[in-house]
């Protein structure tokens, strides 16, 4: 194997050139990753493989000595994910190294077919191992991106707004799964403490469906708010959702519900001893105000 590695070291420039030519020939999407970056990645990988730490053999990719190569592959996969390459394109990047290496080995070992076959086999396995590793790293990097985006979405989607002194509202948008329901509950309860609000309006206009689980989450939030001394009003229940709730046999009898956020707000104002009156001299609004349905 030392021979093979020496061969790689001696012919590093040639391998690099051939490899890049091979990559260009394959249908690579050049708009995603620039040639310069691909070349840099290829050069780094080649250099690392050609100069492994002592006692490191090509037969065992999982050994300690190849850690630098694995780290480099991880780095490449992260950049690939960021550029939007597909997993197969990413693996193809390494697999293109195979024909180049085979060609080189064949030229160097024309007289020893046994050795030739063995070296090709070793190279084949090694490149495969690298390709598998980069594919796995690719998935890992992408999972990380997805997890981060989910977290960001959670934070974005649960704002608590203060409508009036002592009245807060939380417009829930999107499907309420367990983690989001938890988030909604926590942010609402903290807002109640922070703003010292006696009324909390949960608006579910943006919740596409309400099933038994979602209803249970909402009931939990409402009960928790009640335990803290705040009253919850549930608003934004669309007619279809009202029908679904009744069909599912969910009892919301202990919950104050209103169909619109404005109705819930009015109720909260009334219960906190306030009324909204039309000022004398102002003509009553005939046309509906924009934005209020």
């Amino acid at each position, binding site marked *: 194997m030392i021979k093979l590695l020496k061969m790689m070291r001696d012919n590093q420039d040639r391998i690099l050139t051939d490899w890049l030519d091979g990559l260009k020939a394959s249908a690579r999407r050049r708009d995603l990753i620039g040639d310069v970056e691909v070349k840099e990645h290829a050069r780094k990988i080649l250099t690392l493989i050609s100069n492994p730490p002592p006692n490191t053999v090509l037969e065992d990719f999982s050994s300690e000595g190849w850690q630098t190569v694995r780290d480099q592959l991880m780095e490449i996969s992260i950049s690939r994910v960021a550029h939007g390459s597909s997993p197969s394109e990413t693996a193809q990047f390494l697999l293109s190294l195979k024909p180049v290496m085979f060609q080189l080995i064949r030229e160097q070992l024309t007289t020893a077919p046994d050795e030739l076959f063995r070296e090709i086999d070793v190279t084949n396995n090694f490149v495969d191992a690298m390709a598998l590793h980069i594919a796995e790293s690719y998935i890992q990097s992408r999972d990380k991106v997805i997890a981060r985006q989910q977290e960001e979405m959670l934070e974005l989607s649960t704002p608590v707004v203060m409508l009036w002194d002592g009245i807060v509202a939380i417009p829930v948008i999107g499907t309420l799964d367990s983690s989001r329901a938890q988030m909604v509950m*926590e942010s609402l309860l903290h807002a109640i*403490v922070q703003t010292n609000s006696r009324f909390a309006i949960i608006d579910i206009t943006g919740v596409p469906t309400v099933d038994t689980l979602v209803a249970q989450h909402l009931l939990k939030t409402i*009960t928790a708010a009640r*335990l803290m*001394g705040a009253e919850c009003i549930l608003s934004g229940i669309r007619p279809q959702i009202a029908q679904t709730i009744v069909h599912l046999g969910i009892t919301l009898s202990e919950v104050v519900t209103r169909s619109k956020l404005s109705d819930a707000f009015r109720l909260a104002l009334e219960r906190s001893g306030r009324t909204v009156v039309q000022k004398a001299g102002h003509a009553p609004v005939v046309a509906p105000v924009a934005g209020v349905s």
Partner: protein
Amino acid sequence: MERIPILRIGSLLLVTIQVDLYDDLALQLQDDLSTRIADLGATGVLIDISALEIVDSFIGRTLANIAAIARVLDAETVVVGMQPAVAITLVELGMSLPGIRTALNVDLGMEYLRQAATGGDGVGTDHYAE
């Protein structure tokens, strides 16, 4: 033995829990409170648990018991200042404490109890019921 002080304000009793409420202490409090309510003829009990950070099903049940005992002795109980984490824990434990009245802080709880005591049915604040 450690005891939780019970303060008297007019016809109301004020309890602020500022230590970890372990089981014996909770039972002691229940005992003391029932005695004080009966002795003083108190009309309302205010329990401030804003400093309580840990709660279990036993404490939840004791709170419910205190409220029930007080009602038998013709006094209203209001639990005030429950922390979000405590509220979530109780809900997750399945204890919605339906018999307990709650308020955000001592001020609001006091206001409610005063209104309830002056014959008015606590109009304006009586929306915690149902």
